[in-house]
């Protein structure tokens, strides 16, 4: 299976629970589990190739111009992380199935989980750093959804926000860092970047790129001083904590450091920053973990500490340290995920996670006790479990590093032993209590199976490290260091400094546990630093700054905000004009003809009158119609018959639409602005007019600066598109994709209008509407007979004209847009002449369906090109020869144009129909009252 497919599978799986909105937990879990299993199998079949030293790659060219290709690769490092993500993912899905209660929305939960899984797999298998960044951001977003999954818990929402703020901030820095790195390396392909160690490390951009990338890695992997978000994220459901916050997401930062290790590591800067931050994190995380009373809080800070440990190992920059880091990644994932699941089991059974309220569970939950005990001993680094092996390797590396590393690492190990033992001692040992919130008991197999499997890994990989984990750790370490390594793992190395340090740590840790009560009192006496308060203060200050800026800029006055935007646009335009390179105004002007002069005068008079009289709304509408007509004439005068046809038909429907709306709006605009406001608006308007007019003039006085692509279209319109009307061929063929998007937007606009109408008619506005009193006298006969008869007689004729305009569109002015508008006008005339009810009775096709049919027809026509092995929307045409008449051209573009036609008819009619429905509802109460009242004989 290709790496690209492996990445795609979780995303495909994510769609399933979402599709089955009301699925049972079983269905959702099985659907997700099978996709995860499939992806895992896909990884497994690639194992022989990876172990043979191959890099399995998929390269899909995408936007190669900007260096973005969908490149994926699977090497030892990707394999190790991939197996962790998918393997533990599978266990988590099983566990989550039994952890979630019936009230929890299982569908969304599993969708988020699969999204996260896909994003994570994407990170570890990407061979393009830009792709990696996209997946990186996706993990931040999906983890936000997962942490805040219990929306009703305020701490869940706050924790999710904090996690997103911190990791997304780091993600932004990382984007900048990765772009710098790509600049230096000259490629965004990861395998190219990591091959260019010398070029990167000698570049002046090395340090900024390193700092920015590390900011991203440290925030994601909760390294000091960004560690505070991880414990807050524990408000998430426990399966999420076990998955994201022990095994996968928090290791994304570690993964990135390991991935870029060959390019970035080995410099004094790398050692100084990464190893030191890792060491400090390891110590601080361990010290805080010891005094956590929340089970998950303890595990969270312990995770922080262990992530620090791995970071420090990577920071050392030696092959042996990198190998130890890889080993500990597996060891930590196995025991920590098991512990998180154990914490979830305890929480489920006893309904509390507070260590102070627990104790004595040993006899009540013997199975859980066994699992947690082994995992905790591994976490403490007690032989013969896998945690011991990695801790020995770590201490050995720390001892051989310079300075205080050995001493501080030993101290951190003391804490590690102490909190691990405390977890066992304070929860399971001691007397059985009688005040648990509910009676604890061991869970069903669904909950304990996952942790049990992980504990089996803990034991087996401790006893037989070479047989169980040797191969994959070796492959991963070789991939990280870009060298073929052959490490050997053993429980017993003889008496060496590491063993002594380890023994010291165990003894110290046990002593610290005995002295826990006084130590806790001491801690409480010490000044307390609240990371949350600091974070809130920073975020609060940023919010206030943003609010002050926004409020100062926009005070709720639309006109003020618009004017500010316009002025800014003008300034930008002016700056661009001065910095640009406009050629001399060399293009000769056309002579002014009398016709044009008359049109110009009419236009200016129309505009002037409109502005002066705009408060009389009906008159203003007429004037707008006049201006629109002159615009259409302008189009036809300057060789654009298609535009003129479109403009004039749009003009008709627009005016009808505005008239319908004006029916309910005040007929006059009251004067409620000061002279000063009007003056300043006029000034802004004059500036905008001068700017746009001046720019138009400047463009028209110059020839094209570059050869236009229009020549190609004119030349090939007939050859490739089979049509003489170049504009139509561009719309349905050359730029068919644009048109496809545009009719979709038109359809969406119409549906928006429909939805707004529905809301209006269903909401509190409906009552007001029913009470509405007409403010204008109505015509005596609402549906004049003459008009009705004339429109009915005209309908077939108009439809034929529409059809004609449509059919000839490919070769002469016309086409789907214009034909759609003409047919709409014909239909609307019936509304006006014979009434809404009359028209609705006689047409049975819902306009929504027309829109859908149109978009579908256009899409299907476009997709048809695939069957001919051509890209989407490639058109084909041919001629049919029938005896007696001229050859008939048949083009697939006609199918596309039919889609355009249907969509335009549907959209225009749906919009007008919605307004008509409002008109029908308006004044209903009065009409009902009138009907109920006896009509006086004199008025009848």
């Amino acid at each position: 299976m290709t790496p690209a497919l492996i990445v795609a599978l979780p995303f495909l799986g994510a769609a399933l629970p979402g599709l089955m909105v009301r699925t049972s937990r079983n269905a959702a879990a099985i659907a997700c589990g099978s996709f995860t299993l499939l992806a895992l199998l896909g990884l497994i079949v690639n194992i022989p190739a990876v172990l043979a030293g191959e890099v399995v790659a998929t390269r899909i060219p995408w936007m190669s111009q900007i260096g973005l290709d969908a490149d994926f690769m699977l090497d030892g490092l990707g394999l190790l992380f991939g197996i962790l993500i998918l393997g533990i993912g599978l266990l988590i899905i099983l566990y989550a199935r039994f952890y979630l209660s019936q009230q929890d929305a299982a569908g969304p939960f599993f969708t988020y989980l699969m999204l996260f899984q896909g994003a994570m797999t994407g990170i570890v298998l990407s061979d393009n750093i830009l792709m990696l960044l996209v997946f990186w951001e996706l993990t931040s977003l999906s983890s936000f959804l997962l942490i805040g999954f219990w929306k009703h818990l305020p701490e869940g929402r706050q924790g999710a926000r904090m996690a997103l703020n911190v990791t997304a901030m780091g993600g932004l820095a990382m984007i900048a860092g990765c772009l710098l790195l790509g600049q230096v390396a000259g490629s965004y392909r990861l395998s190219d970047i990591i091959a260019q160690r010398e070029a990167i490390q000698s570049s002046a951009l090395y340090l900024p790129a390193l700092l920015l990338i590390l900011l991203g890695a440290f925030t994601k992997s909760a390294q000091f001083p960004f560690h505070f978000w991880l414990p807050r994220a524990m408000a998430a459901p426990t399966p999420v904590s076990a998955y994201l916050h022990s095994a996968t997401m928090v290791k994304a930062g570690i993964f990135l450091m390991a991935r870029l290790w060959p390019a970035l590591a080995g410099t004094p800067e790398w050692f100084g920053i990464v190893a030191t931050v890792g060491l400090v994190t390891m110590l601080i995380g361990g010290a805080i973990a010891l005094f956590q009373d929340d089970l998950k809080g303890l595990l969270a800070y312990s995770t922080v500490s262990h992530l620090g440990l791995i970071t420090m190992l990577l920071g050392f920059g030696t092959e042996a340290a990198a190998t130890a880091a890889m080993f500990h990644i597996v060891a930590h994932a196995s025991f920590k995920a098991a512990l998180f699941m154990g914490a979830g089991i305890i929480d489920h059974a006893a309904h509390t996670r507070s260590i102070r309220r627990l104790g004595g569970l040993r006899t009540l939950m013997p199975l859980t006790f066994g699992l947690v005990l082994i995992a905790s001993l591994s976490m403490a680094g007690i032989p013969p479990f896998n945690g011991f092996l990695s801790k020995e390797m770590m201490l050995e590396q720390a001892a051989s590093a310079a300075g205080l590393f050995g001493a501080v690492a030993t101290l951190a190990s003391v804490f590690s032993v102490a909190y691990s033992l405390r977890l066992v001692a304070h929860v399971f040992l001691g007397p059985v209590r009688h005040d648990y919130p509910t009676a604890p008991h061991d869970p069903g197999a669904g909950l304990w199976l996952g942790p049990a499997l992980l504990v089996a890994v803990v034991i087996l990989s401790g006893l037989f490290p070479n047989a169980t984990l040797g191969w994959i750790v070796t492959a991963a370490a070789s991939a990280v260091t870009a060298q073929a390594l052959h490490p050997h793992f053993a429980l017993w190395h003889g008496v060496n400094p590491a063993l002594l340090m380890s023994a010291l740590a165990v003894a110290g840790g046990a002593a610290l546990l005995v002295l826990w009560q006084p130590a806790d009192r001491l801690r409480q006496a010490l000044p307390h630093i609240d990371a949350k308060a600091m974070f809130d203060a920073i975020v609060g200050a940023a919010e206030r700054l943003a609010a002050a800026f926004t409020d100062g800029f926009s005070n709720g006055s639309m006109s003020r905000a618009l004017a500010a935007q316009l002025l800014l646009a003008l300034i930008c335009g002016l700056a661009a004009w001065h910095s640009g390179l406009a050629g001399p105004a060399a293009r000769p002007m056309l002579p002014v003809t009398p016709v044009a002069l008359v049109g110009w005068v009419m236009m200016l008079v129309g505009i002037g009158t409109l502005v002066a009289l705009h408060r009389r709304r009906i008159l203003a509408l007429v004037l707008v119609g006049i201006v629109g007509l002159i615009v259409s004439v302008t189009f036809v005068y300057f060789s654009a018959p298609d535009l003129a046809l479109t403009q004039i038909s749009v003009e008709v429907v627009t005016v009808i639409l505005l008239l319908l709306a004006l029916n309910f709006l005040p007929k006059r605009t009251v004067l409620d602005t000061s002279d000063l406001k009007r003056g300043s608006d006029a000034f802004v308007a004059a500036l905008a007019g001068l700017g746009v007019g001046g720019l138009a003039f400047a463009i028209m006085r110059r020839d094209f600066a570059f050869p236009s692509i229009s020549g190609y279209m004119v030349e090939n319109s007939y050859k490739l598109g089979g049509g003489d009307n170049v504009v139509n061929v561009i719309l349905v063929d050359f730029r068919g994709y644009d048109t496809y998007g545009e009719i979709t937007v038109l359809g969406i606009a119409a549906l928006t209008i429909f939805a707004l109408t529905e809301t209006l008619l269903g909401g509190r506005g409906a009552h007001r509407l029913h009470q509405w009193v007409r403010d204008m006298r109505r015509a005596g006969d609402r549906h004049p007979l003459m008009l009705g008869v004339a429109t009915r007689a005209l309908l077939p004729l108009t439809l034929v004209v529409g059809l004609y305009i449509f059919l000839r569109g490919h070769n002469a002015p016309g086409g789907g847009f214009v034909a759609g508008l003409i047919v709409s006008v014909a239909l609307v005339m019936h509304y006006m002449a014979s009434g809404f009810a009359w028209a609705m009775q006689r047409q049975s096709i819902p306009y929504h369906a027309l829109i859908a049919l149109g978009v579908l027809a256009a899409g299907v026509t476009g997709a048809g090109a695939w069957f001919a092995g051509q890209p989407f929307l490639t058109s084909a045409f041919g001629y049919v020869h029938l005896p007696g008449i001229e050859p008939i051209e048949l083009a697939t573009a006609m199918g596309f144009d039919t889609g355009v036609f249907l969509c335009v008819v549907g959209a225009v009619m749906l919009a007008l129909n919605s307004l008509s429905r409002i008109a029908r509802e308006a004044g209903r109460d009065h009409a009902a009252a009138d009907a109920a009242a006896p009509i006086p004989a004199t008025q009848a």
Partner: protein
Amino acid sequence: MEFLIASAIGSLTAAGVYLSLRKRSFAVVLGMTLLTYATNLFLFVTGRLVIDQPPVLREGVTAYTDPLPQALVLTAIVISFGMTAVVVMMALGSFIEGGDDRIDLPRRDREGPGA
């Protein structure tokens, strides 16, 4: 001729901007309609002014005006109808629901639910 067109575009823009800066929804709709005309004309004339050379291929004719801006403007005209319709509907909805046709955010909404 170029000056006539440019000044017409400028006037349409100025009038459109002025009306868009009013405080009542109907005037803004009118202003946006004028701005649409101005923008469409502006886009159209980037193909330069050409008389009697419509981009419809004919035997023996070699000179045609630039068809590309026309294709762009054609869809723009139709889309702007959609946009006008949505804006009109919003104006109507807010008038019926809210009782007036002012477009500014009322003070009570601006200060948020807490105030």
